[in-house]
């Protein structure tokens, strides 16, 4: 490895044989795919046979750091966890903040490649350059936080840990891998850990990461980047209310999905606002290397049960709250905490519950189908029971453990009420109200993810342009370029929030070149982003995905949101050709040979 910033090696672990080794990171992989999400795309594309069962031993788990991880570049602490998703069947990378990624790099590793499956529960323990598998029979069945606590006691305070809970062990298709309460969640990587009987990963790193410049110069350059964030007027809002500060604002603008996306505005979000959430805060928390500080520890109580937890995030509030017709904040926070304990994705959990609620509303499900639970919209009490049943795959929980698309398929009804793309439930921005988000949900490789082109920045927040939020004009170009620039953020890996805090594409290029010494321009950033998105597309096409899968639930083209005075609908099919043209894909959505040649993918 010629470049600084990288550790230069992947740890390889074959759970079937117990063999542990290493794989050098070559210059070409770094130059073409940068890190993080790019490494996940390239490694999974090359390693996975087509058509495998995501929960079979052939699936591969890739942990991947980026070149900026642990190098003082602001927010560069996230690590990608990639698998073929059991929920969607697509390629999928989820990201964990906290301290796990930098610790892994201090231990000397750019990532971990985990193959095969163990026949008994194991933990992977990485102590600098040494790694070993330990029996984890005593942890199996324990929740994510108890598992981490026990392992921490055994190994010592200076290890950074992550574990799955019952959700992953029981094969809930959207199970998470949790580092403290940071989830690698969407798409269900935890279920792949469970299928491999990999209960936990622990790492301690005492080594260092070299950077490309003499220290005084490097420190001054990084400080400039930190100061841009520090001085941004939006920063205090993140710190004060975390991500949920946006929710009442989006709702007031008629852009918050309500009652399983039947409407785009809740009549009243009640206590879901900054001042109320701030009352629960006990201390502020940051990920490694971060000065945004969107995290905090909260204490709350519900029905005599007391909790101490990481503060809830915007998407989790939405999915377990207003989209289920619920604004009871302690009930939503309790359900969120239980999802973390059990190890399931709050967003697909909420999306599955809201599906069951619309099914109930329409008389397609009764309490006889749901083990007596009342899935009426607005019933806050059902959240706790539903989450516990999903984690244990008990009764109707076993149906909801398949996600909304899988649940509808299992029951043979209600597919039109499953608010998902490619099996992944939609996020907290109503596609009819932010049409760029709609197109992004429809075309993103892993399904309806809000974080792969957060066009709300350009359609609502006035960052990155000033687009009409309803009009589709220019959105194909906007979505394509944001998908490409986001792929770089996911590969460095920095936090998405930096987009809203003054870090432009030029500066992301700088964040790639500063630690590594790689010469990289803003244009090249876009090219690497294009390459990653195109390779992810190829993966999906070879798995049988077609143009027909780039579609939103039919509801949005047929019905306007009742609360929207403009009665807007959205049919993304009308701009799909334009989007494919922007991407240099053919009418079937396949990347053209000329594009593959230009990007060096063959």
């Amino acid at each position, binding site marked *: 490895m010629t470049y600084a910033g990288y550790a230069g090696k992947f740890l390889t672990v074959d759970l079937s044989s117990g063999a542990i080794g290493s794989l050098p990171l070559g210059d070409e992989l770094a130059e073409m795919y940068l890190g993080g999400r790019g490494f996940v795309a390239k490694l999974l594309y090359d390693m996975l046979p087509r058509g495998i069962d995501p929960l079979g031993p052939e699936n591969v788990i890739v942990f991947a750091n980026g070149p900026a991880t642990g190098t003082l570049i602001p927010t560069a602490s996230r690590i990608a966890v990639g698998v073929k998703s059991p929920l969607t069947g697509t390629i999928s990378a989820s990201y964990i903040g906290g301290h796990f990624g930098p610790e892994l790099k201090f231990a000397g590793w750019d990532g971990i490649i985990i193959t095969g499956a163990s026949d008994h529960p194991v933990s992977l323990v990485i102590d600098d350059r040494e790694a070993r598998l330990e029996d984890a029979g005593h942890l199996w069945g324990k929740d994510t936080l108890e598992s981490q606590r026990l392992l921490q006691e055994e190994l010592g305070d200076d290890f950074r840990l992550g574990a799955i809970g019952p959700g992953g062990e029981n094969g809930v298709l959207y199970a998470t891998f949790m580092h403290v309460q940071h989830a690698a969640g969407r798409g269900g990587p935890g279920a792949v850990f469970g299928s491999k009987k990999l209960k936990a990963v622990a790492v301690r790193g005492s080594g260092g990461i070299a950077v490309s410049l003499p220290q005084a110069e490097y420190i001054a350059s990084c*400080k400039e980047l930190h100061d841009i964030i520090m001085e941004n007027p939006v920063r205090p809002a993140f710190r004060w209310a975390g991500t949920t500060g946006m929710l009442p604002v989006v709702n007031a603008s008629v852009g918050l999905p309500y009652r399983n996306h039947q409407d785009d505005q809740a009549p009243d979000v009640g206590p879901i606002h900054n001042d109320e959430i701030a009352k629960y805060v006990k201390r502020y928390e940051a990920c490694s290397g971060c000065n945004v500080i969107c995290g905090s520890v909260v204490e709350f109580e519900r029905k005599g049960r007391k909790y101490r937890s990481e503060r809830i995030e915007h998407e989790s509030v939405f999915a377990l709250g207003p989209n289920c017709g619920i604004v009871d904040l302690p009930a939503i926070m309790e359900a969120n905490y239980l999802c973390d304990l059990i190890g399931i994705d709050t967003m697909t959990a909420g999306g599955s519950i809201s599906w069951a609620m619309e099914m109930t509303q329409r008389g397609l499900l009764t309490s006889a189908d749901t083990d007596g639970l009342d899935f009426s919209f607005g019933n806050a009490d059902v959240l706790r029971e539903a989450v516990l049943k999903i984690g244990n795959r008990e009764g109707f929980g076993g149906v909801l453990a398949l996600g909304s698309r899988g649940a509808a398929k299992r029951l043979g009804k209600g597919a039109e009420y499953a608010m998902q793309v490619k099996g992944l439930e939609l996020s907290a921005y109503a596609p009819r109200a932010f049409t760029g988000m709609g197109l992004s949900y429809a075309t993103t490789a892993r399904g309806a993810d809000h974080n792969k082109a957060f066009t709300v920045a350009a359609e609502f927040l006035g960052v990155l342009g000033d687009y009409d939020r309803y009009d589709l004009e220019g959105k194909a170009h906007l979505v394509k370029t944001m998908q490409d620039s986001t792929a770089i953020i996911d590969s460095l890996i920095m936090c998405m929030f930096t987009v809203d805090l003054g870090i432009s594409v030029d500066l992301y290029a700088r964040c790639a070149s500063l630690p590594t010494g790689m010469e990289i321009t803003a244009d090249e950033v876009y090219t690497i982003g294009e390459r990653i998105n195109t390779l992810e597309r190829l993966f999906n096409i070879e798995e049988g995905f077609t143009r027909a899968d780039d579609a939103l639930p039919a509801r949005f083209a047929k019905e306007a949101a009742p609360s929207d005075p403009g009665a807007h609908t959205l049919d993304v099919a009308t701009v799909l050709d334009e989007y494919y043209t922007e991407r240099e894909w053919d009418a079937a959505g396949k990347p053209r040979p000329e594009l593959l040649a230009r990007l060096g993918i063959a």
Partner: protein
Amino acid sequence: MQYIEFHEEKCIACDLCSGVCSLNKLGRVQPAGACIRVTRDMSESFGAMRCSVCDMTHDRECVESCPADALVWDEAAGVVRFIEEECTHCEACVEACPNVRLDAVSDRIMICDLCDGDPLCVKWCPEGALTWGGAS
């Protein structure tokens, strides 16, 4: 006497202090080798943060423990200096004081010298959890 003050309730566990310290002193980002180390009490959920850095009280147990002349009290600057050429790598100083650290990569003793009066950790702390304490 000046020293670095730690305000536990303000610490957000971002590790920027140990990151920038290690880069400045060692030329690589390596929190485990930094002069300052911030850790968490892991025995409870989001437990208290702890900071380990020379408190400049100057009982100078590190200096007294050194059988060579590798740790020297610099009275003018009010800090203990590490003289690498004199070090015999006996690690007696690390035993003597929890605020003295060994960089495992270079085998060098790490002790805070207040960055010649302008400590980077204080400058980089985004929450004011580290401040300048004492009078000059």
